[in-house]
């Protein structure tokens, strides 16, 4: 086990964590402010990936495709909120889970009708497709480094917006006492739509970043959605700080677990036992982690103060 490998895996864990954070941030924001469990968040991630891929194919300009993709996802998110989700704010979580589950089925088939069942071809633009030689002679893809940078930038931006701007103040106020904020003359419905749109844009950003490295196919949201839920539960629902912490923890644990669990087990068990136990435990690792966290902190690590 050499230092270079450990450093590389740490970077990998960071990148996975950041990707999870982008999705978790939008989800936890919506949950924290509007008390809405939105399973269809994964569908918005899928929409972001599809729209950006589509526009990139049509226009040949990555920058333009990203802008259009984000805008498109924003629009889809807002429309969905106005049409289907408004009525769910006052309902209990069960209703929200089920209704948004139905939305997932709907969106998946819609994508199938528009683009077919097969995964579509999505690629990184040339300029981002290479690698950098980092210290120690290992190569790291530029694109993944970019994801880390973007993710951390978004985290900074969110922190700034929520703590230093008027909008952020309204968001925090609306989270603790909705009625009072409305009574003070703030258009709470508009606020919710804005927040939801913001969350949708974050999901879309995660989707368009993930598209070129994962596969752009119907149902791609569900593959990552469970991990995202694990993140926000570990981190504490409604808290951006919790989402970041949870995402980084999950990203690290999952990556390092997959990389080092088997060799670690091989030192104490027989090689064949480590061969079977290693992958089996590694696939369950993040769930075990969540169970342990919830056993000691039933509200997550950084629950938002209410």
């Amino acid at each position, binding site marked *: 086990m*050499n230092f*270079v*490998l450990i450093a*590389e*895996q740490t970077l*990998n*864990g960071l*990148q*996975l964590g950041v*990707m999870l954070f982008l999705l978790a941030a939008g989800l936890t924001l919506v949950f924290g402010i509007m008390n809405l469990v939105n399973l269809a968040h994964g569908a918005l991630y899928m929409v972001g990936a599809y729209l950006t891929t589509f526009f990139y194919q049509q226009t040949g300009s990555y920058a333009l495709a990203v802008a259009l993709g984000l805008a498109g996802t924003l629009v889809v998110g807002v429309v969905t909120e106005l049409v289907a989700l408004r009525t769910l704010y006052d309902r209990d979580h069960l209703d929200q889970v089920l209704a948004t589950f139905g939305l997932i089925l709907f969106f998946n088939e819609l994508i*199938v009708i528009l683009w*077919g*069942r*097969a*995964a*579509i*071809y*999505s*690629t*990184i633009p040339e300029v981002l*497709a290479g*690698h950098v030689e980092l210290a120690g002679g*290992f*190569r790291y*893809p530029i*694109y*993944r480094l970019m994801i880390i940078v973007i993710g951390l930038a978004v985290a900074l931006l969110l922190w700034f917006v929520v703590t230093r701007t008027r909008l952020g103040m309204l968001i925090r106020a609306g989270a603790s006492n909705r009625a009072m904020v409305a009574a003070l003359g703030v258009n709470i419905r508009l606020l919710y739509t804005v927040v939801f749109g913001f969350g949708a844009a974050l999901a879309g950003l995660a989707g368009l970043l993930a598209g*070129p*490295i*994962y*596969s*752009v*196919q*119907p*149902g*791609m949201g569900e*593959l*990552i959605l469970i991990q995202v839920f694990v993140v926000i539960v570990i981190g504490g629902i409604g808290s951006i700080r919790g989402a970041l912490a949870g995402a980084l923890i999950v990203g690290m644990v*999952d*990556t*390092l677990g*997959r*990389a080092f669990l*088997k060799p670690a087990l091989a030192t104490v068990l027989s090689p064949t036992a480590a*061969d079977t136990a*290693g*992958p*089996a435990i*590694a*696939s369950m690792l993040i769930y075990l982690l969540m169970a342990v966290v919830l056993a000691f902190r039933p509200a997550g690590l950084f629950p938002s103060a209410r």
Partner: protein
Amino acid sequence: MRKTTRSLLAGLIATAFIAAPAFGQQKLKIGFISTFSGPQGVIGEDMKNSVELALDHLKRKVGGLDTEVIYGDDQVKPDVGKQVAEEMLKKHQVNFVAGIIWSNVMLAVAPTVTGAGTFMIGTNAGPNQLAGADCNEMFFTTSWQNDQTPEAMGKYMQDKGIQDVYLMAPNYAAGKDMLTGFKRYFKGRIVDEVYTRLGQTDYQAEISQLRSKNPKAVFVFYPGGMGIQFLKQYSEAGLRGLFPLYSVYTVDELSIPAVKHAALGQLETRYWSQDLKNPANEKFVGDYRKKYGGKTPSYYGAQSYDGIMLIDSAVRAVKGNLADKKGMIAAMRKADFASTRGKFKYGQNHFPIENFYLLKTVAGPTPTADPVMEIQETVFKDHKDAYGTACKMKW
């Protein structure tokens, strides 16, 4: 309002009973089970297209009889597949059940179908149980036994004297079978054998591990979406030039459009290729491209096409007398039809004894076309599967 809803519901249920077809004419009914929903539906689509093409070629008369094909969706779930099969057997009273992509669905459906005295014509799944101890005279397959394809790759790499191979597959039954089959013929040094989580999307951690081990070659099995993700990430990590990548069931005509040049240079083994030169295959591939907007069929399609042709040869042999099951079994054992893979024989266990080729993914005919897979050499001639000896059938 409530009364109307109730009577509507009652009416609906009643109509469902009445609408069940119960005709008894001498029509041939084939039930075709595959996956038509979800991301794997793309495979079912290819199979259905091929079945329809076969019906076109036979002018909608399989074995000379008017044919109706009823399609059923197993949703990748064995118990749903079983229910669909039972519906086909009991409600539609089909004469043949064909299809099935997944081994676990096949293991649930095949005994149900053969147990009811109906033919099960598998057109993809090849679990070792059905090739061995659980073989059955009413079960035929037009595909292969799961292990054979990785065996071919193992033999190729063994013959080439490649050492220090790194193995990867998802952690489930098929994944383990693939690596077992590979190791049956590959006796060289194996650097490591890594199993990843089923459905995993991000392989960066495993790719880093791989690089640190510095193997001479990499052999993987990543079907469906996992293959697309792995290939892209392998390519983007710059590993394509460093470690030659060999695989089975990871790159095919269905996944190439999603990865394009990331698949270039990929080596796989298979019993069939779109460029296999025989009249039946040329007709199949050519007409498929014409009928379906220039798309190239995959091996799933070729197998399904052959499945219909196999049934055709059997019904023809008994002159349409569907009650003569013994006659049809004898006819099918002869494999006397123009298969897309060329001439082949059936083993004792009703699994084909066939050639396996090395395929390479090369650039397409024009700069903008997708890569295609082409045969490079023959690895196995008339290869039998490893489980046939456990089958007790004699003929």
